[in-house]
């Protein structure tokens, strides 16, 4: 592994550079040990496929350009089951096409990472413009009764760090993890310095250690997660998207179904405190709290600084983990403030609705929405206060 890191670093360079969010995500994936990318380029995520097409071979990995997004996520699932850390990147219509197979990954507990750069819809919409309109799709895009993890960076450094984290969560919890920056963050360039190997923790999936003939791919350890063998190893096992028992083979027993469905949710609930990542900016004494994510975090922080100059105590809670939702963090902070503002680049107030669910109907929640393909400005956020 260290050899691969070294190789990765030689390829990626060491100095302080001006790089794009998309590039930081592909570098984050390489740093985390991803050695398989399959994708179908789509604006505004195409630079990730482009980078991977150049870098993957140099670090001993595989780049596959697929015929569409359905095949892309299918290839990722196959590669992951064969033992590779695997990912894909897409946007808008491509993310919709991936939903069915993402459900397969949930059901088969296949670690994988999907980057969904959010662009303005509906449908093919404004393909080059930013949006935050997929928040509910991230959580509920698949049919059935399932749970995934979704992360949302606001800076180029967070694009890198949260991609590493996404792989760590995927590997640790055997679950698909979606990284969902908006177009602004994905296309933005900022000063960035690649961490040294070992500087950021990298987690690999648990492998089975017992006798291959006793291996049960869906019997969880005390941490709620089962070790995962690799296809092609001496551990021969079965993975199915249909309801299966501890051995992976078809099982229609109601008790088994209840156990399986609950386990897919519980392994995430059990580790909720580790998974839910938030950042606080000047929230200690705040009367006004902005709850923001992605690019709107930056506008909110600028708005909060301006409001403080006017004598209004404003702070920002940044949601980096969008799903599972930061219920506790939102409730704890919102409890101490008079007004909550939720700026987001969608019409429907997808995060504001969640905040409302957490705080109840009596809370003073002010929404700031943009849905014209333009970013939200600090002035637009400030306006709802004065």
């Amino acid at each position, binding site marked *: 592994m260290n050899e691969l890191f070294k190789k990765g670093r030689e390829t990626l360079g060491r100095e*302080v550079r*001006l790089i794009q969010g998309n590039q930081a995500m592909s570098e984050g994936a390489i740093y985390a040990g991803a050695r398989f990318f399959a994708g179908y380029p789509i604006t505004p995520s195409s630079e990730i496929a482009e980078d991977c097409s150049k870098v993957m071979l140099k670090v001993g990995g595989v780049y596959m350009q697929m015929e569409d997004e359905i095949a892309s996520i299918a290839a990722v699932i196959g590669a992951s089951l064969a033992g590779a850390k695997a990912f894909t990147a897409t946007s808008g219509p491509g993310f919709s096409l991936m939903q069915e197979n993402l459900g397969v990954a949930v059901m088969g507990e296949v670690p994988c990472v999907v980057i969904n750069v959010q662009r303005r819809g509906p449908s093919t919409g404004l393909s080059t413009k930013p949006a935050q309109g997929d928040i509910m799709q991230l959580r509920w895009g698949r049919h059935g009764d399932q749970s995934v993890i979704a992360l949302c960076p606001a800076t180029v450094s967070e694009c890198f760090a949260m991609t590493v984290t996404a792989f760590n969560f995927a590997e640790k919890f055997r679950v698909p993890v979606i990284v969902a920056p908006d177009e602004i963050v994905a296309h*933005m*360039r900022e000063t960035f310095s690649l961490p040294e190997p070992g500087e950021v923790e990298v987690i690999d999936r648990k492998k089975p250690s017992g006798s291959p003939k006793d291996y049960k791919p869906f019997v969880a350890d005390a941490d709620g997660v089962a070790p995962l063998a690799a296809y092609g190893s001496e551990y021969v096992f079965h993975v199915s998207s249909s309801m299966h028992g501890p051995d992976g083979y078809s099982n229609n027993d109601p008790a088994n179904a209840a156990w399986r469905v609950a386990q897919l949710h519980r392994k995430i609930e059990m580790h909720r405190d580790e998974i839910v990542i938030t950042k606080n900016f000047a929230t200690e004494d705040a009367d006004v709290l902005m709850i923001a994510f992605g690019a709107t975090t*930056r506008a909110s922080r600028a708005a909060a*600084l301006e409001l403080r100059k006017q004598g209004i105590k404003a702070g920002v809670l940044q949601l980096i983990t969008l799903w599972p939702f930061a219920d506790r963090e939102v409730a704890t902070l919102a409890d101490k403030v008079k007004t909550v503002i939720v700026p987001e680049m969608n019409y429907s107030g997808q995060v504001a609705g969640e905040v409302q669910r957490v705080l109840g109907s009596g809370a003073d929640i002010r929404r700031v929405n943009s849905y014209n393909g333009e970013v939200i400005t600090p002035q637009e956020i400030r306006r709802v206060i004065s």
Partner: protein
Amino acid sequence: MGKKERYEIILAGSGGQGLVLAGIMLGEAAVLEGRNVVQTQSYGIASRGGLSLAEVIIDREEIIYQQVQEPDIILALTEEALEKYAALAEKGVRIFYDTTLAKPRAGENLTGYPFTKIASDLGNVASVNILSLGAMTAAVPMVKTESLAGVIRKRFQGKALEMNLEALRKGVELI
């Protein structure tokens, strides 16, 4: 003119004029000088034509909001781009524009040069972005011309390198 702690720059024109690349190179020059940079862009679905713009913010401090709010200097390479920003000249924003593609305008802070024609005469119309950057950085010390030359040397080689360094020189000489 002394160097400021923070510069906000807009490079506007049409798709295909290399404005995003100009923004990246300007940003990279500032990174060479040890400063923080945020570069964003806005463009339509066409790879040629349509309003296209790159924004660059250079600061010694952390750059929180990513978009330009109070531009110090604007480059307008088309009539459409100049129309959008010309009024800001009266508020003290330094505007450089291309008289090859935009109608000449009189007024303080408005500086027109035939950037596209000069680049074309040099033998490569695609070097219009670097030529314009040369003029702008000679007039307003956002970054050192030498830092820009360093970025060009890193990015290009052979004939393309010579041509782009020549474009930079020509741009600087305009001021």
